[in-house]
């Protein structure tokens, strides 16, 4: 019912505007070609990573003068809200739609529908099971785990006992990172994996699990963790147990890298980049202009070794800042 009212209102409004334009002398309004309007249906804003994601979206939009307007909706992680959001954005007349899926499968029909209408759809942040879209911007999550594992194995000169801490069992992101890491560790026979546990990306859980690992294993030479949220508390546990701090892996979380820098211990931060949104904007602009766009665009990532970590870490800023993802004018940076 609401939708019908909305559509009717819109039709009346459009008719009125058209009439006004006609009365003002017709032809002119066509001549002043309007720019590109971008719609961004975001899944949610539940953490600082998402704040950076939106900041990068806005910053990238500002770099394109041809974008005259953009709309961002927030689905609060609910697929049904995201479906309604996408409808709203279509009504606003966007020239390209960017989607960060809540639940990929649930919104496939909506994405296919928009694509069928000839509006470019750019999806990022999730592997979506359809090819009826313009472009999927992705970060290779297997490579995420591989790069971390490679750094750790090289750091230990191919020899040592390590523990592995993963996110949530069954979660695609966690499992991909783990699979990538295991693939690399297999190539280093001198690397012995003492234990692997899922810590749900929860700092207290990671800390107590690491405490038990410290008791179980008299010698731990390295920590592979798929996120700084777990390597950081794991290192805390080692410090409190008065064990020597060892090389670790994580992501670009400032709290983790701050700990590394403050304790002068080597680590590797492989970004789970928030710049995906910026890349999505670039692809959306290309598509809206009618240029050719690749079906899948992998964003190029470089990991940060100890030296870059020292340069990029922001000792005075929030633990929840994402280092290296802040290549944008200050006015766009999230206030943490």
């Amino acid at each position, binding site marked *: 019912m609401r939708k019908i009212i909305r559509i009717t209102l819109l039709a009346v409004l459009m008719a009125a505007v058209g009439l006004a334009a006609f009365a003002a002398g017709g032809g002119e309004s066509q001549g002043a070609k309007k720019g590109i309007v971008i719609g961004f249906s975001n899944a*949610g*804003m*539940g*953490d*600082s990573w*998402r*704040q950076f994601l939106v900041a990068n979206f806005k910053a990238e939009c500002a770099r394109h003068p041809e974008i005259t307007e953009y709309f961002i909706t927030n689905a609060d992680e609910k697929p049904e809200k995201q479906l309604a959001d996408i409808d709203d954005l279509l009504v606003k007349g966007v020239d390209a739609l960017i989607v960060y899926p809540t639940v990929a499968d649930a919104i496939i029909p909506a994405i296919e529908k928009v694509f069928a209408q000839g509006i470019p759809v750019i999806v990022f942040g999730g592997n979506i099971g359809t090819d009826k879209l313009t472009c999927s911007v992705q970060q290779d999550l297997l490579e995420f785990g591989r790069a971390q594992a490679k750094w750790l194995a090289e750091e230990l000169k191919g020899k040592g006992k390590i523990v592995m801490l993963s996110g949530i*069992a069954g979660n695609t992101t966690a499992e991909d990172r783990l699979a990538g890491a295991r693939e690399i560790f297999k190539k280093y026979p001198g690397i012995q994996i*003492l*234990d*692997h*546990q*899922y*810590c*749900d990306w*929860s*700092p*207290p859980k990671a*800390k*107590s*699990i690491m*405490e*038990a*690992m*410290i*008791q*179980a294993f008299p010698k731990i030479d390295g920590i592979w963790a798929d996120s700084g949220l777990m390597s950081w*508390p794991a290192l*805390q546990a080692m410090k*409190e*147990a008065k064990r020597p701090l060892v090389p670790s892996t994580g992501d670009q979380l400032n*709290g983790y890298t701050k700990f590394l820098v403050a304790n002068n211990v080597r680590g590797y931060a492989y970004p789970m980049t928030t710049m995906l949104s910026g890349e999505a904007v670039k692809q959306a602009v290309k598509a809206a202009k009618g240029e050719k766009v690749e079906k899948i665009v992998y964003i190029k990532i470089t990991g940060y070794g100890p030296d870059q970590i020292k340069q990029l870490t922001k000792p005075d800023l*929030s*633990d*929840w800042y994402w280092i290296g993802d802040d290549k944008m004018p200050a006015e766009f940076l*999230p206030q*943490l």
Partner: protein
Amino acid sequence: MAGKAAGAVIAGERGLYFAVAGLLAAAGAIYLATGVNFFKFTNLLNIARGFSMLSIAALGQTLVIIGGGLDLSVAEVISTANVFAATFMAGRNELFLPITALTLAFGALVGLFNGLLITRRQVPAFVATLGSSIVLRGARLMWTKGLPRGYIPDNLNQLGVGTTLGIPNLFYVFLAASLLVSLLLTRMGYGRRLYAVGTSRAVATLSGIRTERTIVGSYVLCGIASAFVGILLGGYTDMSDQRIGEGYDLDTIAVAVLGGAAIGGGSGSVRGTVIAAVIILVITNLSLLMGFPIQSQMVIKGLVIVLALWLNGRRET
């Protein structure tokens, strides 16, 4: 009738002691067989910290369950209190005490709201506390825009990770908290009234007990305990985290029930809850030391709880 209930509780506790003895025997056997030493002092200290925090939260839950209720808002109160405390303490030692007081007051307020909803409006405890937990989460996310914020002061961090005379500071906090709850339940009129209300609200009303006030009190105390654990968790992890309390809602219920608190009210004790927390922590720790995947620990934990309930159920029929 009261005697019979007490008898059941004691019988239940005997089962708990057997369980602890069995676990320690298993730990000994594991040591002999594999060399994995559960009894190492540093390991026991680790357990003591996790145990202290779980116990304090579970004692709050126990009070609510004795009074015939259930509190599903524990986890969200913990997370919210954690973010609240870290934000306003802002890493400054001198703010630790005043903000702690304020945070506990916040926990009490949530408990008061839960209690009034349940007693005045006759909303089932399950629904009322679930509702307030959703409100809390939403309000927290709106307030922080989803950003964890704030810093833990050094003195709180010391409380969370430090030791005094070789014993974790958290353990002293636990001792004090359990002593308080124990006195409340066994030596004070409030405890007697709470058991009476939980056993039969109608009888309690007839005996002149102000049942509503008694029940509201249990939720207020549980709110305070949860908020306190939120602060302690901040000290333990040295960070504020939006989801730090996750899992505490069901864990506290599991511990209280395993410890002999009956859903429906009237029974439960500090000793039972504390021993149950020991059992849960020892199981988790042993399986971690053995390198079992964390999923298997959930199975073991769940089975122990179901088994305990099954044994208790048989005894009472």
